[in-house]
């Protein structure tokens, strides 16, 4: 029999809040984490604003030893480990060091790159004939699975320990991979999450593609404008989110707090066929992904109370709304609430799906829909499809039962997960 899967722990390191309390406060109140970025300005980027989590050395030392932080230069691993350990502790799980690994627990913690600053540092040394001076952690910090490897060691995980990677879909995909592993009985508990490095070496390629906004260098908090007619590109961001997924019986047996149930979901690809390309989504695949997720979750499209979209603040936002509307067969006033966390944190790339999933689960658990900021001027293509009351500009306190969360990424890849408020 297939196991039911629930969420028992959350952790987040976001540009507008590090830790659950700060993050919950920020998203309820529409607080932006986007700031002027002096490094991007110095390097003459078109876009000179960004969303970066603030992590002090003092905070880092609560998660890493002094030795681990020596020559440490990987923001993605830093964010991922903090979010991951926070989620683990939030789930009421122990951090004690036992002789044997915890065979029933694993982690699927995704990222797009790892330790890009460490990688740059290493390349400079190698080209300067200093390979022997790289130190012992250059590999651990720059291998893509670095974040899951660090977490696996800190938590003594003995089940699957791996890193998935599917561009901006990564975090949504990691939740679904964890869900499947627990559902099939291969693990009792998986720490699912994703992270993204900060800085110019991650964001430069996007700046070169001219997909980031260059119109808000002097008004950073207004820069990220999903669904707005004046949206002019995304704001680069970074950070990590983490959720503990657990077999329902195990969670109940240990009396764990249950945030939500994962009902199911779907991942697919548009194959870069039809309208799909490396960078543009194939709408047929997007709609199929949403429809299959609903079917997999065993619900009806009318049961969805709210959507947490991908909605990056590029010209594709209207197309995304159209895809949702057609896939759900719902429009106008009948459309679910929809919001985009990117209005407050920018596009956290490989970290986005996880940070946004944490926000979605908090909405279900606490009963609210967080506001979209910077879209006073909704795009008319969007308001012809759905009623503007469905796009909250102020927080709405209301009981929610089912939320759909989707992410879409380069490579024409899609992921959609369905969360439901838990009822025993």
């Amino acid at each position, binding site marked *: 029999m297939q196991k039911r899967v629930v969420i028992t722990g959350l952790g987040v390191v976001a540009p507008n809040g590090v830790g659950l309390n700060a993050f919950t406060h920020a998203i309820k109140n529409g607080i932006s984490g986007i700031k002027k970025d002096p490094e991007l300005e110095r390097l003459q980027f078109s876009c000179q604003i960004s969303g970066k989590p603030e992590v002090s050395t003092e905070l880092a030392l609560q998660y890493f030893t*002094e*030795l681990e932080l*020596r020559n440490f230069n990987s923001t993605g691993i830093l964010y991922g480990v903090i979010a991951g350990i926070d989620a683990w502790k939030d789930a009421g799980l122990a951090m004690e060091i036992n002789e044997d690994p915890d065979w029933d627990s694993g982690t699927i913690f995704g990222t797009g790159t790892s330790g890009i600053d460490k990688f740059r540092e290493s390349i400079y040394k190698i080209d300067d004939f200093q390979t022997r*001076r790289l*130190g*012992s952690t250059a590999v651990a910090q720059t291998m893509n699975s670095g974040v899951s490897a660090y977490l696996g060691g800190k938590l003594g995980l003995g089940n699957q320990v791996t890193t998935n990677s599917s561009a901006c879909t990564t975090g949504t995909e990691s939740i679904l991979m964890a869900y499947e592993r627990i559902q099939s009985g291969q693990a009792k508990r998986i720490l699912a999450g994703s992270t993204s490095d900060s800085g110019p070496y991650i964001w430069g390629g996007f700046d070169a593609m001219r997909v980031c906004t260059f119109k808000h260098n002097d008004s950073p908090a207004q820069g990220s404008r999903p669904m707005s007619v004046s949206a002019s590109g995304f704001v680069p961001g970074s950070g990590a989110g983490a959720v503990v997924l657990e077999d329902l019986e195990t969670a109940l047996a240990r009396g764990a707090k249950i945030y939500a149930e994962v009902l199911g979901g779907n991942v697919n690809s548009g194959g870069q066929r039809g309208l799909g390309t490396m960078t543009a989504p194939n709408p047929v695949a997007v709609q199929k992904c949403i429809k299959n997720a609903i079917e997999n979750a065993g619900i009806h499209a009318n049961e969805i109370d709210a959507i947490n979209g991908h909605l990056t603040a590029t010209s594709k936002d209207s197309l995304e709304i159209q895809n949702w509307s057609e896939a759900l067969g719902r429009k106008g006033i009948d459309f679910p609430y929809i919001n985009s966390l990117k209005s407050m944190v920018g596009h956290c790339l490989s970290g986005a799906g996880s940070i946004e999933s944490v926000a979605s689960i908090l909405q279900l658990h606490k009963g609210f829909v967080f506001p979209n900021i910077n879209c006073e001027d909704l795009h008319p293509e969007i308001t012809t499809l759905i009623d503007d009351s469905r796009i909250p500009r102020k927080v709405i306190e209301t009981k929610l039962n089912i939320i759909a969360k989707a992410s879409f990424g380069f490579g024409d890849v899609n992921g959609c997960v369905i969360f439901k408020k838990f009822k025993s």
Partner: protein
Amino acid sequence: MNKEQTIEELKSIVKPYIANQEAFDTLTEETDFINDLKINSANLVDVILDIEEKYNIVIDNESMERMINVKAAMEIIDAKLSEKE
């Protein structure tokens, strides 16, 4: 080169990497880096880089292989320093 002084300098270099405080507190020339101090073998290259920096010397791969305890480390440091003179 003053032996006691070198031992003290070596102690401060290896201190961040050790996992056995007792062996560290009673460190002698015979103390083995991995078996006694329980330094992670991957971290030995960091210890060697720190020694190079401290004494401004270069420790070649062959010397590195021999550098398993305090005594060997002191001999190698001594030899490299005298090569410089």
